[in-house]
Structures are given as C-alpha cells and as structure tokens.
C-alpha cells in the first residue's frame, strides 16, 4: 500500500465526518466558484457593453442637428482642429443637403425641407421611395413657406449626405449590396439607398440628376431602415459646392482611440472649438453608468470569490488540524516505526486532496445551479442601488429616494445592463480545480508538518 492509497483510505475512515466535511467545503468552494463565474459573466457583459458604445463622438454645430435647428455650421478649419486633438484617431465630416423632385418643385407648393435654406435645396429627377402619409403631409405643411397644405402629388424630399467616409453621419458603415463604396477620386459618383434605387429603377451604372449635375450610381446600400434607404451619398467636396455650403460641414464623426478617452476628447473638442459653439454627443453616458454598475458587481464578485476561497482554506485548515491532532499518537507511532516527516505530511496532503476534490465536484454542481442566480441577484441589486439618487436639501437620513428606473438615465443604464448570463467554462473549471488543490495542499500540509515535528517519545509517555 502506497502513501497515496493510505491517504485516500484515511479520507473515508469516518463516513459521517467525511460527508459533513465534503458538504461544508463544497458550499465554500461552490460559493467561491459562483463568485468567479459571476465575475467572468459580468466582465463579458462589460466587454459587450463597451463594444456597443464604440469609440465614436458626433460633433454638431451648437443648436443644430441634421437639417434642423440653428447656429453656425462647422468649417473645414474646425475639422482640421478636431483632427489635432489628442486620442482622436479619425474624424469624418459630412454635409447634409436636400433634393426636391422636379415635378414637386414645378407646382406652386414651396417646401423648404426643414429649416435648410433654399439655396442648399437641389432639384432632382429622383422620387422619394417613402409615401408621405399623414406625418409627411403634416411636416410639409408646417414647413412650407406660406403654411399651405401639401398637394396630392406631393413627394417627400430626398435626404442627401456629402461624405468621404465609408459610414453615414451616425457612424454606421454603408452596407453595400451592389457595386462599391465611394472612393477618394470620385466626383460625380453616388451611392444610393436600396429603396430609392428600386423606386427609381436605378442600378449600378445608372445615372440621375441632382443640382443640374448628372451622377452615376456606383453602389447601392441597405442600412436596414426605410428612412436610411431613401438617402443618397456623394463626395463631400461635390456636395459642399453644389449645395452652396462651401467650407461648411453639418457634422463631424470622431473616432477616439479608446473608450476610456471619450470624455476627455469630448471636453478637448469643446475647448478647442469654443464652448457653446459645438454640441458633442455620444451614447457613452448611459452605457458608462451601466459599466460603472457592473464594475461594482465585478469588485463584489472578486471580493466574494477571494473571501469564499479564504473561508474554504480556513475550513480545510481547521478540519485538517483537528484530524491531525486526533491522530497525534498514530503519527508518533508512524515515526517510531520509521516513517519520515515527508511521508507523514504527504499522507495527510493526499487525504485533504481527496476531501477537497470531492468537495470541488459537489461545489461545481452547486455552482452550476446557483451561479446564474447569484450573478443576476448581484447585478440587479447593484443596478437598484445606482438608481437611488441623492435629493438636495434633505437630511442625511433621508437623502435617498427610489425613482422609476425606466424614466431616468440610470434606468436606461439598468436596462442596458440587462441579464447577465453565467456559465461554467473550462477556464473556470481549471481555476476551480487549481484553487481546490491549493486549498488542500496549504490546508493540510501546514498542520501535518507542524505535528510531524513532534518527537515520537510523546507517544511512549502517553502509554
């Protein structure tokens, strides 16, 4: 019989005690692994959220967005200034313009297409693919020069964008379904939305007229919405020139090198272009709140993991201390008949390993059952805490109140956090086994080593 077999047999000397020890350790290890799984699940969710927020900022003239609002347009110089801001990896400018159908423009109904000046509104032979409907007619009437109702043959204006980027002004990359994207040396080339192309029987290579200029369709894109698929995109310089917006930009889409620098870059752009002159927006705020919420859960999970692991190690240590002390005489006898300290320590380490490995197996089961619930309970609890907002002017004891989560930015953050899916992967399994082995070795070797140093004469004295 080897020391390994003897150690393993010793683990089952007392079935009742073995069962109790395994159960206690399994709870500790299971809780520890659940925390680890929760931490990993939260990390995965954070990474997912970070990938959602991207690293984009949109710079608009202060008070304007798209073709609505007021203020002064951005300029090419401002674009150049934005590109010099630290951590800006890319800045793509765009200019918006509106095209009226030549038949609509021939009747007396004068539609301005929002508040954009007439000079920037061009004439085209294209017809919008969107049926005006009630909303379109209401919008057209409210923005017509004299407030008259839109006629029956009224056609919605077509939204155009001048850009040198492969993405629209929202930062969504054009999904070209046919042909190609715009390239640097294009002048009278255009890419058009799929619905607009279908409505006007346009294909790659077809031509259309805008601003009295003939454009060739080089690509057709599908952005997934009817609104976006009713637009056209032409090179930026061409759009600026034809729409009378030379040196003017409607918006700039800024790509920042990392999500952590978004706020700093936003502040730097505002400072560089002048406070109050530009609006810088990103979807980061809500997601940052969600990430902050998850970060606190991540920390709680990490602390919980370490605490549960330490607790399991202490339990193992105490159990092995009791077992070792109980077998003090036996250890003395083993030494008296020639057992070395190393052999005795190894025997107890094997015994502890058997107990801890059994507990790990049971703990894995506990983890499988509980990790998802624990992760979501932690996330839910943390998100609720985040929605508790300080109320100014109230006493210290009453400084928080519950608010409708869905109606606040924090509420949106909560919904962004969503459900965290915890799963026990191979790495978790590996960590679990390694942690368990570490617990077993440390928890048993120390007391066994301490007791093995006792002189065997004490056994004789006990006789």
């Amino acid at each position, binding site marked *: *019989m*080897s*020391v390994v077999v*003897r150690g393993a*047999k*010793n683990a089952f*000397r007392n079935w009742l005690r073995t069962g109790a020890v395994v159960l206690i350790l399994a709870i500790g290890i299971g809780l520890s692994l659940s925390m680890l799984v929760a931490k990993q699940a939260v990390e995965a969710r954070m990474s997912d959220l970070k990938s959602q927020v991207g690293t984009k900022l949109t710079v608009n003239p202060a008070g304007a967005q798209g073709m609505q609002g007021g203020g002064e347009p951005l300029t090419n110089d401002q674009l150049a200034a934005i590109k010099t801001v630290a951590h800006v990896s890319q800045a793509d400018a765009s200019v918006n313009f509106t095209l009226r159908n030549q038949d609509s423009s021939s009747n007396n109904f004068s539609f301005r297409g929002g508040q954009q000046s007439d000079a920037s509104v061009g004439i085209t032979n294209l017809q919008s693919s969107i049926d005006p409907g009630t909303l379109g007619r209401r919008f057209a009437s409210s923005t017509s020069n004299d407030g008259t109702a839109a006629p029956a043959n009224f056609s919605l204006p077509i939204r155009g964008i001048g850009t040198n980027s492969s993405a629209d002004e929202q930062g969504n990359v054009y999904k070209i379904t046919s042909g190609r994207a715009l390239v640097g040396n294009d002048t009278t080339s255009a890419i058009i939305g799929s619905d607009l192309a279908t409505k006007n029987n346009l294909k790659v290579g077809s031509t259309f007229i805008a601003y009295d200029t003939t454009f060739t369709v080089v690509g057709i894109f599908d952005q997934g919405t009817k609104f976006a698929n009713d637009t056209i995109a032409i090179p930026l310089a061409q759009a600026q020139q034809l729409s009378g917006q030379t040196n003017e930009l409607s918006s700039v889409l800024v790509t920042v090198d990392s999500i952590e620098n978004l706020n700093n870059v936003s502040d730097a752009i505002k400072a560089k272009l002048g406070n109050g002159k530009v609006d810088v927006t990103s979807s980061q705020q809500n997601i940052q709140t969600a990430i902050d919420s998850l970060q606190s859960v991540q920390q709680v999970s990490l602390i919980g993991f370490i605490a549960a692991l330490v607790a399991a190690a202490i339990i193992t240590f105490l159990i092995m201390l009791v077992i070792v002390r109980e077998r003090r*005489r*036996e250890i*003395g*006898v*083993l*030494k*008296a*008949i*020639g*057992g*070395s*300290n190393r*052999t005795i320590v190894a025997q107890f380490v094997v015994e502890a390993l058997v107990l801890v490995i059994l507990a790990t197996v049971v703990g894995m089961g506990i983890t499988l059952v509980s990790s998802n619930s624990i992760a979501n309970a932690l996330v839910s609890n943390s998100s609720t805490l985040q929605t508790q907002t300080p109320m100014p002017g109230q006493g210290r004891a009453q400084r928080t109140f519950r608010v409708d989560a869905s109606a606040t930015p924090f509420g949106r953050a909560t919904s962004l956090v969503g459900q965290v899916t915890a799963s026990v992967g191979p790495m978790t399994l590996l960590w679990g086994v390694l942690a368990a082995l570490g617990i077993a070795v440390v928890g048993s070797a120390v007391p066994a080593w301490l007791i093995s140093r006792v*002189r*065997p*004469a004490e*056994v*004789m*004295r006990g*006789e």
Partner: protein
Amino acid sequence: MLKVEHLKKSFQSGGSIVKAVNDIGFTVKTGTFAAIVGKSGSGKSTLLALLGALDRPDSGSIMVNDTDITTLSDRKLTGYRRSDIGFVFQQYNLVPNLTALENVMLPMEFAGIAPATRTLRAQELLTQVGLDEAKQHRKPSRLSGGEQQRVSIARALANKPKLILADEPTGNLDSQTGEQVFALLHDLSRTQGVTIIVVTHDLGIAGKCDEILTIKDGMLTKISK
C-alpha cells in the same frame, strides 16, 4: 552490543525539574533478553524512548554497534528507527483502518521494500507469531488484545531489527495471553539473535529474562542476571 554511558534526561514539570533518567549506564550484549523494572514514574519508559531514539538525552551516549545514536541527525535517526529498531507498545498502536497484514507491511513500505516482497514477508511474520491467514486480513478492531499484540510484534520484526524495545507488552493482556506473548518474544531472542529490552513491572515475567535492570527515581539501582 548496546552500551549506555552517563545517560541523563530531565523534564520541566510545574516549575520544577524532574530527572527522569539520571546518569544511567549499562551494557547489553547482542541477543540478550533484558527487562527494565521499576515503579511507575521511575523513568523506565523514558529510558526506553532514549534507547529507541524517540527522544534525545540531555547528555550521555548510547552506543549501538559502535555508533553513538545520540549524535545522529534527525534524518539518520529516522533511518535508525526504521532499520535497527522494532517497537512493541502496551496499547499495540496499530493503525486502525489498515488490516493486520497492512500494518505489518507498513515499516517495510517506509524502508522501500517492493510490494510483493513485503506482502510475502508480512504473511510469514504473522504466521510465525501465530495469526492465521483469515485474521491477517482483519482490521485491528476485529482482533483480540493478544492477537493485536502479536501483530504488533510481527510489525516490530518486519525490517529485521537488531533491537526490539517493548514497553509493557503484556500490560493490557490477561495473564495467560501475556505469558504467550512473552514466550513469543523470548523465543525470538533465542532463535533470531535479536536483542530485546522489555519494560515491565511484572517481576514474574522479568524473572524469566536474561538480565534485569532495576530503576528507581531515574537511577539504575541494580543489575541482576
């Protein structure tokens, strides 16, 4: 040859120093069956522990075949206990979850003897001490006191020691079984030339030994043959 000279061992007990072994010296020739007798607390078990290298003396020497074991390192002492000494305890001290056979195999495992060899030798030894094959596979709790002591003696003989130290080997046995165990030890000393030192307070048993060392208050008061 076992030669003890000026052996001393003291313990601290309740603020005072107890001289458990106080300047003891004697010589025991190889193959001798010797008894150490004395009242309870006279120091005989402490002397046995020093002879078996289970404890270190404060001073003095214990020469075993020209080697002073009091000067050996802990590792060498483990080797000495493993190869040269066999212990028989009053409480038997068998490992409870091992069978009789496995208990006897244990010292051989520590000595690095191959499993097949140690199984064979353990079976031989148990047969020699009178434990039949069926009982060899029983755990100690299913053996009588006398049978457990026989297993203990077989375990002490496992690594063919030069010296067997027995502390009250018949103390927990009825007189008939005690005599049988004593006879077994006596027979071993004669047939195998093993030096045996038995601690006992039974003067009847001691009287059958080759030498009797009488100890009183930690001092050797009499050596009789």
